[in-house]
């Protein structure tokens, strides 16, 4: 976050995501760790690096921030961090003694369970959300969106006419 080269910060993000996956391995939830590596490290970071390459030169340094804003951000973040840490240390958690038992089969059967305690409805909602996001991406990223509203169409027509006129002028001149 503190580096000023955007490509370097993307690489640091990659390493920190791998570190979080390692933390999940250490917590013995290997399924979440695998999902983390596949989705974040394999998908999102690659997407971010692609967009960095598409939008600007990767080696270019970002402009420096104003010091007042940086100081305010540091103060706010440190105070929030201290407050949260105080809460964590003073509230003494009592960990349960039972073992955390999960299996992928359990997760799957509960995820598609329609009775109470099942997660079938959120699952369907999330899949609809993914579909909508995909369609939205394609619509946003279309190279030349069709001019649907009247104003844009008129502007486009005017532009075309002007170009046509200039072309005509050029041809007339060349003929002369």
């Amino acid at each position, binding site marked *: 976050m503190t580096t000023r080269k955007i490509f370097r910060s993307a690489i640091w*993000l990659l390493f920190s995501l791998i570190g979080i996956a390692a933390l999940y391995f250490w917590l013995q939830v290997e399924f979440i760790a695998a999902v983390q590596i596949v989705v974040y490290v394999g998908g999102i970071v690659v997407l971010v690096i692609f967009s960095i390459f598409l939008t600007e030169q990767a080696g270019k340094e970002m402009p420096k921030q104003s010091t007042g804003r*940086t100081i305010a951000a540091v103060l706010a973040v440190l105070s929030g961090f201290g407050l949260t840490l105080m809460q964590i240390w003073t509230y003494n*958690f009592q960990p349960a003694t039972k073992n955390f*038992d999960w299996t992928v089969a359990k997760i799957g059967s509960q995820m598609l369970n329609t009775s109470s305690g099942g997660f079938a409805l959120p699952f369907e909602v999330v899949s609809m959300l993914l579909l909508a*996001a995909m369609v939205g991406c394609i619509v946003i990223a279309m190279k030349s969106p069709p001019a649907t509203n009247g104003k844009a169409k008129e502007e486009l027509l005017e532009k075309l006419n002007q170009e046509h006129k200039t072309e005509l002028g050029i041809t007339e001149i060349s003929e002369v």
Partner: protein
Amino acid sequence: MSHILFVSTALFFIGMYGLFTRRNMITMLMAIELILNSVNINFVVFNKYLYPAKLDGIFFVIFIITIAAAEAAVAIAIIINLYRSHRSIDVEKASEMKY
């Protein structure tokens, strides 16, 4: 358990710091990813240590990861489109829809 919560709190506030100071849209997107990851860590830790008989935290983590992926894809599509029209991805310069 408190140590892992310490790690996730640190991650959350590093992401907040990035979100506050950076004006570059891709960097802000990366900061949001950091924040979501710290929340995921919290969910897993609370599920493992406080409610080991249930699996709700794991489901929340899975759904958050899915939504984060969708959100990142949409955000990057918007950013690339904005760069095409404005030649810049600075949030200060994309203020014409503000008022």
